[in-house]
């Protein structure tokens, strides 16, 4: 298995890149707004999960969304598509 190299000797003969979470680092830093889920309103429909371009939403055991804020770019699609408006886009603090 080709690993991420440090020296030239460790480099493969041609660029072979390894599947890595966070290839661009913590893309959560791109955000201006962050999605906040009101779990009392959420109907566990999983629509937000299927539409996240960044694979930043995972499904909890009961199918409620778990948002990974390290990687969520704050695009707002989840909030826009939620049929019961259970997700609100709030300005990032700091």
């Amino acid at each position, binding site marked *: 298995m080709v690993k991420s190299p440090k020296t*030239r000797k460790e480099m493969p*003969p*041609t*660029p*072979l*890149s390894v*599947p890595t979470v966070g290839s661009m680092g913590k893309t959560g830093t791109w955000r201006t707004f962050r999605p906040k889920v009101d779990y009392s309103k959420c109907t566990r429909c999983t629509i937000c999960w299927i539409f996240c371009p960044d694979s930043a939403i995972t499904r909890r055991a009961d199918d409620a969304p778990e948002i990974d804020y390290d990687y969520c770019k704050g695009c707002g699609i989840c909030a826009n598509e939620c049929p019961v408006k259970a997700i609100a886009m709030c300005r990032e603090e700091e």
Partner: protein
Amino acid sequence: MEQTIIDTANHIAGLAAKMARVKVVAAYPITPQTTVVEKIAEFVENGDMDAEYIRVESEHSAMVACIGAAAAGVRTFTATSSHGLALMHEALHWASGSRLPIVMAVVNRAMGAPWSIWPDFSDSLSQRDTGWLQFYCADNQEVFDTIIQAYKLCEDQRIFLPAMVCLEGFILSHTYMPVKIPDQEKIDAFLPQYKSSWTLDIEHPYSHSNLVSPEWYMEFRYMIQEAMKNAERLIPQIDREYGRLFGSTYGGLVDKYRCEDAELILLTMGTMGSEAKLAVESLRNKGLKVGSARVRVYRPFPVTEITKLAKNAQMIATIDRHVSFGMEGFLETEVKASVFNEEDSPLVAGFIAGLGGRDVTSETIEKIARKSLKWMQKGKVEKTTEWVDLRE
């Protein structure tokens, strides 16, 4: 069963691909390569060759299809000429950068405009910087042997670069010559299973060749250069091993003829090398100490071999079958570069001959030799880059 057959270099190239047990051929017809792919189509369709023949819609796609197939893990082959090779240009870079051991027969043909179907080396030499090994053959036997040797070299883990086996259009491609064809079993023993430097693999998923920043790119290029240096070392070894097993050998990187005590060495590539041998015989019969060196491998350039030759000779006359406009022929330039830092480097004279298929006979080469000898007596090359037999 070893046998001798009489066939054209194009058919021989197709036969070599078949006997190398190539699994995917992707090719597009172009004069004078066409009979290579027609032969392969015949082999595949009557079951003589267990391979896929992708009748692609352009040469660019031909090279890329070979890249795809090699990346997926099989031995590949293609062939082209002239503008077909030029059309593949960016794909040639991609193939070498991908370190895939693709072998391609290049049936040398002049570049246009204007259209010419006759041979010179402007097509393959224009691609000299693409990171491909380049071999230049002087007869049909060498075409067969070199293709087989090329697979062995390219798939060596110290190399993993693609290779062009060049043969002049019509002079070799369409000329019948006797060729010794070895046993399939012996070839199988010489050429084991296809080995790639990497493959597309479900168990080990990678992205191949996504974006590489300035932080890493240079090292990848350095590794290609290292592979070329390894090739310079390994080619003579493989050539000797092949000679032991199959009986034909070519002297490694440079095919030398009567150079040991030569004062003037005529340096050529391709079939001019054979004509040069005749010229040498004729001149030697007149007491002139002339030898000939046929550069068999142009990339990697045989710098060490050339500097060795240069030690004993007073002059090297290069005969280039192409020209780099605004400068000179590549052999002339690269020989000069090879000997520049040597003590007592010889005089180097450059001649351009045979462009667009103009015939270069042993008599022409004798004339070149005589002119060079005159300059050698004077101790000075009187004209840089002389064009031979030019209409006034």
